[in-house]
């Protein structure tokens, strides 16, 4: 029983953190048709914001403020310098954003060094929940993730801005001719997606080893979630992250992390092969 509860909590916390990265990716992909390989590095920079704050000697909570600000700025710069030139060149967008990810990662290595940094947990100590002791900070992560993703869902489905975004995803030319400023919408979406990935990075930093390679470690599962769940909708992203994270946590608890990685990747490749529109998508 306790094993099941721990497993459930582990899955939930991994899934929610993954969801934060995936949501940004899904909206950018749906809206601009850009596969953003640099999204993992946005997550990475968010985590290094925490390292920076800790080095300065400020309290951890400032990092949660700093990370979105830094990342929104980074997102705007990247969008302005690179992304807007390659909107209509799909394959090139993969390459260019991957180049950006290299550059950002290397900048981090130059500034902070290539070795792993450790970050102190701001809420040390466990709590008792459903008969198991569980780290309190992980519950905090879940809270943040739930709050942020609910806010995203509300923004997407219940506000005029969300309606505009969904309109552009459905038919860009039509939306533009109805007077929606698609250019501004693209820029804002990219920046917000980057900002959320940054918050995710900052929140996850205390429970991960912060090193320049951690971005890829989150990027690939996030992509798989989108492909498995079905691209284009937030619901697909939700399903996909649930499938990916539960499989990965389950297998790595029973066997090892390496086996989990192999199993998850192989399964995803099969799912993508047989359900090209994802498991939530309608079959063509």
């Amino acid at each position, binding site marked *: 029983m306790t094993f099941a509860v721990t497993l459930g909590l582990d899955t939930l916390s991994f899934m929610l953190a993954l969801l934060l990265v995936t949501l940004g990716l899904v909206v950018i992909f749906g809206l601009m048709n850009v*596969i953003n390989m640099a999204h993992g590095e946005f997550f990475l920079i968010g985590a290094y914001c925490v390292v920076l704050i800790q080095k300065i000697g400020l309290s951890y909570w400032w990092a949660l403020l700093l990370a979105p600000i830094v990342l929104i700025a980074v997102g705007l710069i990247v969008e302005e310098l*690179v992304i807007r*030139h*390659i909107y209509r*060149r*799909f*394959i*090139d967008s*993969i*390459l*260019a954003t*991957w*180049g*950006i990810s*290299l*550059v950002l990662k*290397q*900048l981090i*290595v*130059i500034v902070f060094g*290539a070795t792993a940094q450790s970050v102190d947990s701001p809420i040390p100590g466990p709590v008792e929940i459903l008969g198991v002791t569980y780290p309190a900070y992980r519950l905090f992560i879940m809270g943040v993730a739930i709050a942020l993703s609910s806010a995203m869902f509300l923004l997407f489905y219940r506000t005029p801005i969300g309606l505009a975004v969904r309109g552009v995803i459905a038919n860009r030319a039509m939306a533009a001719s109805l007077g929606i400023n698609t250019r501004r919408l693209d820029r804002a979406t990219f920046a917000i997606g980057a900002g959320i990935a940054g918050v995710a990075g900052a929140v996850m930093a205390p429970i991960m080893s912060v090193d320049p390679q951690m971005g*890829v470690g989150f990027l*690939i599962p996030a*992509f*798989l979630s989108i*492909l498995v769940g079905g691209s284009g909708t937030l619901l697909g992203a939700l399903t996909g992250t649930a499938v990916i994270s539960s499989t990965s946590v389950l297998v790595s608890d029973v066997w090892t992390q*390496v086996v989990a*990685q*192999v199993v998850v*990747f*192989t399964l*995803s*490749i099969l799912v*993508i*092969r047989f359900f*090209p529109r994802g498991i939530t998508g309608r079959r*063509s």
Partner: protein
Amino acid sequence: MVTVGSWTLLGISSLVLDDWNLAQLAQYMAYGIFAMGLAFIWGQAGLLSFGQAIFFGIGGYSVGLVALGHLPLLGSSTMCGFLLALLLPGCVSYALGRILFLGKGLSGAYFAIVTLCAAVVVETLAQQWSFIGGFNGLLGIPPLGAPWRTAVDGYLTPVEDYLFMLAVAVLVFLGLLGVVRSPIGTVLAAIRDNDQRTAFFGYDVSRFKVWAFVVSAVISGLAGGLFVTQFGFVAPSLIGFGLSTEVLIWVAVGGRNVLMAAFLGALLVRSVEGALSDRLGNFWLLALGVLFVVTVVLMPNGLFGRILALPPPRRFRDTRTAIKLKRGTKV
């Protein structure tokens, strides 16, 4: 003209450069062959593969395992190793290609991401599998032998070795060029530009994709095998995600649409890296990343793509053929 000139220049450099530089350049040749394999599938057939190093690594491991005598059934001849280095990537890519392309099939980005995942999985497996050396890889793989020399260490001298690599590179180049300029190459280009329309013309698009994938995998396997004989050891880093993406950079920087440009791109990036990476340290990768982004955004043909582009095949230049085609007569 420029293409022939470049090859001649590479040939002449065997007389000019010292042994150490020649050995380096011979290593880069292997990377160059690898780059041509990728340029073939990416530039010609439009399939962006993020997992090309899987085949490079399989080729490398095949040659390494056979040379060290780990596969007793096959003996330890270099010939056998290379045969395996061609056969194994071919079979793996055929299976993978059939799974991915036949039936509904995957397109564009999905193929890129699936191959990326496959590269990560294969690298992880290679690190765990102790038979092929695990994390450490296989050490002490002998260089290419010279059977006509009876001395105890009958290996090729650096100049001979370099010329051998150059010859293989030229052969691979001519072979791939032949395919690219043949009608098959035209079909592949059509698939790249619009695969639906090509399918409507009655071509079996997925079969062409599978075979293009196999050809490029076999070339990559050959390159991997050659590289290992130059480098002397094979490690999981040769089979994984890192090298797969590096080769993408070389090809993008050189020019993805032209085989020769991709080859020179690999040579250029590796040479500059060899010369500068000690001095620049971490800033080298930064500069490379920036260069990569700039070429992708501003120069889709790469640095050499435009200079080295060859005129279209003769059958497109001959107006009489075009007229006959228009009338529907058999050519």
